[in-house]
């Protein structure tokens, strides 16, 4: 059964965040609408995870506004964060049970999602410590997907997976988005992955974390083949401000503060 669609959006304006006196995020603003996939790219330590945790309500806002009208948000963390004393099936079922679904029905739903994610019955019966890193990631993704969320917050969801499995899960996520209009805010280090999945890509610079560049791939996801993705990624990496964000060799320092309006490309 497909849950009712909510006219959801996530709107951030002027977000600032600091750990003690160290600014982590500066003037962050973006919109995420129903059914849209937004990828956040940036070097390590640029505040992507902090931003995602703010969106999930795990950190308190310090400055700016964040409006979230999605009814069923779900999050997948960078580490799997599975309960070691529950088997994989029960870990997936956990978020469904949190909504009051009886244990039996939640387990059935978990089994279905687990199979979709390539976890067989043996893996679903296993304790988390007995699973490989990739399997643990999939259990964690299953825990987020099983509630059929309208907003998915994903923190490097496919970092521990091989390329074959990654491609399968990309298809699965896009299918999920087409079927249920799920919005996704995804952190990734993999530019090609962002180019494969995202409707828009936001690129952040570090110290403090700020969005300096926005790129909207021209083709629809279904039409993006490997050659196109490679070519587009190469083109994106030639943009001077993108090179600066990642502090690539030969790049100028990333612009700071008021001198840093966001650049766009389509």
């Amino acid at each position, binding site marked *: 059964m497909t849950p009712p669609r909510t006219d959801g959006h996530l709107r951030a304006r002027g977000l600032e965040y600091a750990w003690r006196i160290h600014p982590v995020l500066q003037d962050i603003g973006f919109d995420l609408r129903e059914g849209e996939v937004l990828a956040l790219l940036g070097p390590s330590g640029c505040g992507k995870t902090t931003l995602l945790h703010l969106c999930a309500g*795990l950190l308190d806002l310090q400055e700016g506004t964040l409006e979230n009208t999605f009814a069923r948000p779900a999050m997948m963390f960078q580490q799997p964060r599975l309960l070691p004393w529950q088997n994989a099936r029960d870990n997936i079922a956990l978020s469904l049970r949190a909504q009051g679904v009886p244990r039996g029905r939640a387990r059935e739903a978990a089994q279905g999602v687990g199979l979709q994610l390539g976890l067989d019955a043996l893996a679903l019966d296993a*304790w988390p410590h007995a699973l490989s890193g990739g399997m643990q990631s999939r259990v964690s993704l299953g825990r987020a997907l099983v509630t059929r969320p309208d907003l998915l917050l994903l923190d490097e969801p496919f970092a521990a997976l091989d390329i074959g499995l990654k491609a399968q899960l990309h298809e699965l996520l896009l299918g999920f988005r087409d079927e249920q209009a799920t919005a996704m805010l995804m952190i990734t280090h993999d530019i090609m992955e962002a180019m494969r999945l995202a409707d828009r890509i936001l690129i952040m610079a570090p110290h403090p974390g700020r969005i300096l560049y926005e790129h909207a791939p021209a083709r629809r996801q279904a039409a993006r083949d490997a050659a196109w993705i490679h070519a587009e990624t190469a083109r994106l990496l030639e943009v001077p401000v993108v090179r600066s964000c990642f502090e690539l060799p030969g790049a100028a320092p990333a612009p700071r503060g008021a001198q840093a309006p966001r650049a766009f490309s389509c």
Partner: protein
Amino acid sequence: MLPTLRRILRGLPAYLWSGWGAACSLLFLLAAWEALSAHYGDLILPAPLATAQRLAELHGSGRLGAELLVTARRASAGLGLALAAGSLLGLCAGLSSTVALLARPLITLLLGTPPIAWLVLALLWFGMGDGTPVFTVFVACFPIVFAGALQGARTLDAGLRDMARACRLPWGMRLREVYGPHILSYLFPAAITALGSAWKVVVMAELLASERGVGAALAVSRAQLDTAATLAWVVAVLGCLLCVEYGLLEPLRRELERWRENTR
């Protein structure tokens, strides 16, 4: 409930079979005892058979059961109080880093104070009744349980806590499925250690400060230079301890900590 029972029954033969190792080491101990007894003579160390015979006599006279019951009652009362107070206060202390910091030196002091010192104080406070052994057991076990609960509460995984918030787990579920099993994994070993201490301390307390119980019976056998009876009482106490440990606590621990097994 039914699947749990089925799983326990399925695992029972393997569990009983694993008892051969323990039986083997106990038989080795008996053999060593027999050898030492043959060397030193019955007055110093009566043979295992003579001890068993004395144990049977004590059982026949009804004293064995009666005294063991008194000792068990005192030990469980003290241990029960220590478990209740220790886990509750330990958890509360663990939730605040300031209280945990303040509690640490006190726990070290309590753990380091010899039970015999408490016993003397308890004798002055409670006299020769049940109060003295129960209090001594309580005060010996409390810091062990408290430290276990405090450690459990201090080491709660912040990652799992965030996950529980992100999944919007209701409070009951968080306690039952996220925090509870973690704290239990610290509390349970502490409770087992406390149980061992409880038996030792209660016998010592009874020896010096009571007219009933195994400890008091040991005092009588010492006065009569009845080494066989002394050993019979020691064997009875150890037998009870082994029964509780392997008949109740070890199966319970295995059931609660199944997730630690290497299943694949």
